[in-house]
């Protein structure tokens, strides 16, 4: 029942997004613009700083993710449909999971565009260990989105919500950024440091478990007045 509700919510979000495609297009474009700005800002001898590839990619995902979260929940706020979801006789955490899956999917699409772009601009060897890279991206995205979805949902009713989300989200997700960047950088080296990357992946996995659990736990008390 829980999974069915989460699936329903996610499918509804996807349908809405597929119809307008507004958030997907703008988020991807924003992320690409971020990468380009960083690439041009951080130059050495007229060429982009190759060591910065991993960092730039993850920062762009974080910025784009924050925007996407804001837009997604702004949409819900506009028709007060989040209230309608809370009225339903379903487990509230299931609604959270549905929204979370939608955001994760959106960010994975963004990453699918960014990784080749980063590979191109920074000559990063993205095909070194594709599975491990994907695993890092997925677990990092889940960790970031887990906290982001919770905070964005609870900010729907707050004042100054646009600036509040980054203020709250970035400090909490710093371990995700560190682990993601370091793990990706380990994979982008000439001789990929696989053990190191795996260790970072383990840390990310642990973060995901702790913070998804914490979010599931606190979703209901946070959303009820």
């Amino acid at each position, binding site marked *: 029942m829980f999974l069915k509700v989460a699936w329903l919510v996610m499918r509804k979000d996807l*349908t*809405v997004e597929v119809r307008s495609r507004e958030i997907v297009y703008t988020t991807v474009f924003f992320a690409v613009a971020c990468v380009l700005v960083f690439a041009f800002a951080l130059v050495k001898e007229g060429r982009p700083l190759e060591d910065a590839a991993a960092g730039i990619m993850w920062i762009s995902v974080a910025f784009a993710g924050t925007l996407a979260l804001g837009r997604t929940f702004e949409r819900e706020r506009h*028709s*007060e449909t989040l*209230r309608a979801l809370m*009225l*339903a*006789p379903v487990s509230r955490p299931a609604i959270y999971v549905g929204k979370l899956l939608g955001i994760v999917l959106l960010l994975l699409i963004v990453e699918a565009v960014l990784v080749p772009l980063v590979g191109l601009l920074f000559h990063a060897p993205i095909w070194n260990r594709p599975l491990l890279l994907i695993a890092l991206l997925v677990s990092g995205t889940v960790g970031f989105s887990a906290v982001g979805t919770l905070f964005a949902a609870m900010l729907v009713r707050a004042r100054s919500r646009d600036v509040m989300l980054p203020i709250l989200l970035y400090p909490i997700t710093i371990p995700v950024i560190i682990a993601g960047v370091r793990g990706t950088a380990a994979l982008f080296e000439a001789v990929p440091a696989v053990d190191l990357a795996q260790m970072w992946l383990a840390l990310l996995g642990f973060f995901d478990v702790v913070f998804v659990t914490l979010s599931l736990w606190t979703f209901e008390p946070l959303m009820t007045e």
Partner: protein
Amino acid sequence: MSFDFTEVAVRDVSRHYGRRRALAGVSLTCRSGEVLGLLGPNGAGKSTLLSILATLLAPSTGQVYYGSHTAGQAGPALRARLGFLSHDLHLYPELTARENLEFFARLYGVEAVSERVATALGRAGLTARGEDVVSGFSRGMRQRLALERALLHEPRLLLLDEPFTGLDDASVAALVSRLHELRAADRIIVVVTHDLDVAERLLDKVAVLKDGRLVAFDDAHGRIREHYRAHVAVGDRCS
């Protein structure tokens, strides 16, 4: 697991936000087959009371009893017996009418989804527009759709927040007759409205709120205008 009730009792409910008091010591009851109207000037607390009845807000003090249980005791099963038609309509503008209904039907665990949705579209007079996205609908069409959405799961308690605002006479008449049908089907209906004409045609009981307090609670008997003018204009207190 099915939870049901025949009476809603508000017992001494207050709600405040810091030092702003939205409701103070409101008590009233409403039974199956009755239509209760919440009247009063703007800011009187009508929407707040409706939100509390819908379990969207918790009262600061006091309790609401659905049958013999409070919202806390009944849990999610209570929400399956509530239908809420808010001023915001709670429809997804990017989805079609059918998709909106199907989503909520599935969410509420309604059986035989397709048939119910088809019936609902029919009652809303939107069968021909079922595959059109809601953003293209007029206010009246959206209202009808939102009402049917709120009724998909056959709730016992139906709460409507200013449902007549912005409707033309024909739509108002249609809505009134729909509500009469529901009343005949033993539902409990609570309506917040400004429209005294409609109120006279529709209500069995009337509760007048002013500044968060209940200044009148009585059977309507077609004397709604009297009630309203007497208590809201002069500011008398009586219960």
